[in-house]
Structures are given as C-alpha cells and as structure tokens.
C-alpha cells in the first residue's frame, strides 16, 4: 500500500504539470501541446505559431512556477516541523511572510516601478528572519520556544508595518495592489527569468535539506537526546532553519503569501507514509508541487477571472486535512 502511495505521489508531479499545459482560455489540442513540448525539450522550439508561444511563454513557466513554489513551501514546512518538534509549525513561523509582505507593500505603494517588488520583498523577508535569529539564538540560546516566540513578535511587528504602509498608501489602487499581492499569485513569477532566479535559490537549498533528512529525525527527538547522539542541536537547527528560511523567502517574494501548503502537505505525507522525516521530506516535495499546480489550474479555470491561489489552497486544504485526521491516532500521540 505504501509503495503504491509513493509511486502515485512521485508520478503525480510530472503528470499534473503535463495535464495542466492543456488548460487555458485559448483552446489548443492536447496532441499539439505535446508536440510543442517535445520540440522545446529537444531544443528545437518552433515559436512561429501563437499556440507555441502561449505554451512556451505563458503556460509552461506559470505551471513550473506553481510547482516550484509548492515544492519550496512543503519541503521547508516538513523540515521545520521536524527540527522544531512541532507538527503545527509552518514555513511562516520564522517571520518571513510578514517580512516579505511589508517589503512588497512598501515597494508597491511607495517605490518607483523600476524597482522589482520581489527583490524588496526578499530583502525584508530575510531581514525579518535575521531579527528572529538575533533574538532566538542571541538571547534564547536557540531553544525551540525562543524561536517560535521571537517569530510571533517579529510577525506582529511587521504586520503592524504592513498596516501602516496600507494606511499611508497614496491611492486606493495601490492598496488594492497590496491586497492582491497578499492573496498570492504564482502568475507574478510566471516569466522564465523569474523561474531561473527562484530555482537558483530553491533547488540547491532543497538538495541540502534532502541530504540531511535523516539528521532532521535526530533533531526531532529533542535537544538532550540529540546531544546524546552526537548532534549539536543549537547550531544545526540554526543552519537548517536558515536554509528553510531562504527557500520560503524565495517562494513568497515571487508568489505572495500562499497559505496552508507548508503546513498541510507534510501532514498528508505523514498520514499516508508514517512520520520518518526521510520520507516526509522526499514525498512532501512531490506532493507539494502537485498540489500547487492543481490549485493553480483551478484558479485559472474556475471562473473567467484568475482567483488568487492563496484562497484556493486554503479552501482545498481544509477538507483534505479533516478527512485525513480520521487516521491521525496512529501517527501522533
């Protein structure tokens, strides 16, 4: 049964990416889409037809962006849950979201257009994380409770800053732009250069976490036990949290705030495959990618307007988790 789940989860990602290429307001026959894709993969792209341009310049990068953001948020969530010994932790516990939100709001409302929003968001996201690190590891010796508490404090401060930015925004249009950004939209990252820049951060950092997946098991036992097994929880947690923070910051700066993925996906994997971090990390990556690709399909296809994906991930996620909770007794105690 578990092997079946594993195979399904792994294959769902490429499958959902390919199927999603067929979806869009401009009708393109599936065989033609596959032909265009084949030409592109074999490095002979033919961009003379509008159909090819739509697939290569619009659909494919947007779908890849969704997959990448999904991978990023779920791998970051899975590893943070393990290293913080807390199944309720999401990638947003480290202050990164509110940091990115404040930066994006300031950029959208006050900064000239030529300054990229995602750059400002990335800078403030990392600044927020560094404040959390300074408080938690500077004064709190890197204990889990000090990390979570300083995350709460920094989140509150930056949220207040966000409200200020909205309040003083020069026009209602700018407030609307901020609100829309906050709802999350992978289309914001739907250009090839964006994909390349996001991948440059997300892929190497994810590889580090995947390689350390057994170590995250050890950290999840608690500081004393981890120490007795030769680990240094204070420094190792700082290292792995920073990697997760970078991944999250990259995803959030480009795609806005997409909730629930980082919390939900690792839980689904745990309920299907068991708690071992080695498997939770690996399969969260695939399932998270699939989940966001499908959510983005819905956000594009449900109505004539694109519904912000952050709303859909929550609406889709809640019932899934409720159904899976029926099995939860075996997994948590």
């Amino acid at each position, binding site marked *: 049964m578990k092997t079946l789940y594993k195979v399904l989860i792994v294959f769902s990602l490429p499958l959902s990416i390919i199927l999603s290429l067929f979806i869009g307001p401009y009708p393109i026959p599936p065989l033609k889409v596959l032909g265009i894709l084949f030409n592109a993969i074999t490095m002979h792209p033919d961009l003379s037809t509008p159909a090819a341009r739509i697939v290569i310049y619009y659909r494919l990068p947007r779908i890849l962006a969704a997959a990448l953001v999904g991978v990023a948020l779920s791998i970051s969530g899975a590893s943070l849950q*393990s290293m913080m010994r807390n199944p309720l932790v999401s990638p947003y516990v480290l202050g990164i979201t509110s940091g990115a939100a404040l930066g994006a709001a300031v950029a959208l409302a006050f900064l000239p257009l030529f300054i990229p929003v995602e750059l400002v968001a990335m800078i403030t996201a990392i600044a927020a994380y560094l404040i959390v690190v300074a408080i938690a590891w500077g004064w709190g010796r890197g204990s889990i409770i000090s990390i979570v508490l300083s995350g709460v404090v920094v989140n509150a401060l930056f949220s207040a800053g966000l409200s200020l930015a909205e309040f003083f925004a020069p026009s209602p249009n700018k407030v609307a732009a901020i609100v829309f950004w906050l709802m999350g939209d992978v289309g914001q990252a739907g250009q090839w250069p964006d994909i390349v820049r996001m991948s440059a951060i997300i892929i190497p950092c994810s590889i580090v976490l995947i390689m350390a997946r*057994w*170590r995250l*098991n050890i950290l999840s036992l*608690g500081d004393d036990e981890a*120490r007795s*097994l*030769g680990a240094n929880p204070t420094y190792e947690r700082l290292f792995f949290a920073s990697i997760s923070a970078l991944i999250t910051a990259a995803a959030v700066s480009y795609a806005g705030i997409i909730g629930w993925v980082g919390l939900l996906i690792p839980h689904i994997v745990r309920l299907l495959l*068991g708690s*071992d971090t080695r498997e939770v990390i690996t399969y969260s990556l695939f399932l998270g990618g699939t989940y966001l690709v499908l959510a983005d399909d819905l956000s594009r296809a449900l109505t004539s307007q694109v519904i912000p994906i952050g709303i859909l991930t929550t609406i889709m996620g809640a019932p899934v988790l409720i159904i899976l909770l029926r099995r939860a007794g075996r997994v948590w105690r």
Partner: protein
Amino acid sequence: MALVTIIEVENLSFSYSRDEKTLENISFKLHRGEILGILGPNGAGKTTLLKLILGFLRGTGRIKVMGTNLQKIPRRRLARILGYVPQEHHIVFAYRVIDYVLMGRAPHYGIFSMPSRSDYERAYRILEELGLANLAEKTIAEISGGQFQLVLIARALIQEAKILLMDEPVSHLDISNAVKTMELVKKLVAEGKVLGVIMTLHDPLMATLYCDKTLLLNNGMMEAYGSPSEVLRPDKLKKVYGVDFDIVKYNDRFILVPVVKNISNHDN
C-alpha cells in the same frame, strides 16, 4: 580482575541559579562491570547529575570518562562512549520502532549521511535479541511503556555505547516490566556488552537487588556512597526521605521495608 575506573567524578558542583546550589561536592567512581544506582528524593539532583556526566550541563569540578577529561572529548566521540536512556517522555512524531532504534547510529555518521543496510540488519538483530522483533514495524505510539523502555535500551546498544546512563528506567513500569528491564541491564553488564551503568532510581529495593554501588543524594549533597548494604540503612534513609524503615532479611541480603503505622490485621 583489577578495578578499572571508567567514570570518575571529583568535587562536582553545579547550580542553575546564583543563590542556590543544585549539586555540591559530588565525588564517586564507576568501575568496570558495575551498576551504580543514584537515589534520593524528588529534586535531590539525580537527573542533574546524569546531565552533567552526559555533558548537557557544565559544572565545576572534574568528570573523567574512560580516563579522559569530559570537556576534551568531542561530542560525537562522547556519543560513542555514553548511551543516554531518557525517562519516558513525549515524542512528537510516532516513528516506527525500527527507525527509532536506527537513530542510535547517528554518532557514527556525519550530518549528511544515511544509515546503511547493515545498520538495518543490526537493528533487527538487536530487537530480536531483546525479544522485540514483532514490534519492529509498529510505531512508538502503539507500544507500551515497558516495551518503549526496552526499545530505548536497544537504541543505546546499536549506538555501541560502552556506558549506559539511565534516567529512572523503572519508575513508571509495572513490577514485571521493571524486573525485565533490570534483568536485561544486569545481563548486558555481565556479558560485557556494556562496561558499566549509572541509573537514577526511586525504589531502594531495586537498588538492593540489582546495584553494585549506590549513591544517596539529599538536597544536592552526597549523603552516602558505597555498596547498597552500606548506604541503604534505616538511619540514612530516614534522614533523607523522612520515613522509618524496617530491615528484613531476604536470602543473604537485607531489604528495607517502610514502616506502616496502624496497619490493619487482615487475619482477624
């Protein structure tokens, strides 16, 4: 066989806060082949003493492990000498027993490594030796407290720890599991799979039956240290616990029984 000292504690003191000493001037030795029981009331400093020896806390004075100053032993090497068997505790994620035991291999690997196939085989073999083979695929949420205690010992064994430090291994177990655990520890020491054991205990009876040495703590001070028959005496226990004890002869040992006043006579 000559006495070989494997752990030496000298004038160890420690305090969590500035005004109050948690432990003061503790000195003792653990020799090869010995089981040392640390007794004392709640809050006497038993667990703190274990944590100091494990290097989780740092006090003043000296601790030597296998002849080397504790501070000079890198953490990973220390983890291959000392095996920590924690008190029953909350584990957030319900790992499978086999995966949990396997984590004992961590001191033998770097941060970016994974346990090998032979580690798995070894883990299964150890579970089998302890009679736990049928639990391997269960999660630790599904097994009993007594079984979990044995799983923790299995993890220390696969860690290839030479000395076990056990925090109240039997206080939450029923008598059958308590005896099973203590018999196992005794067997491991007798077979030389473990060179020595330090454990905190609540029950003087367990110390009398299974320990070679006992250390009695009272408010962070050493009340007595020596063989169980020297340390576990009514006058000393009365001083530490405030309870009167009777001595009962059992085989060639003396066992302490708390005096119960106004005991009803069931025969009448």
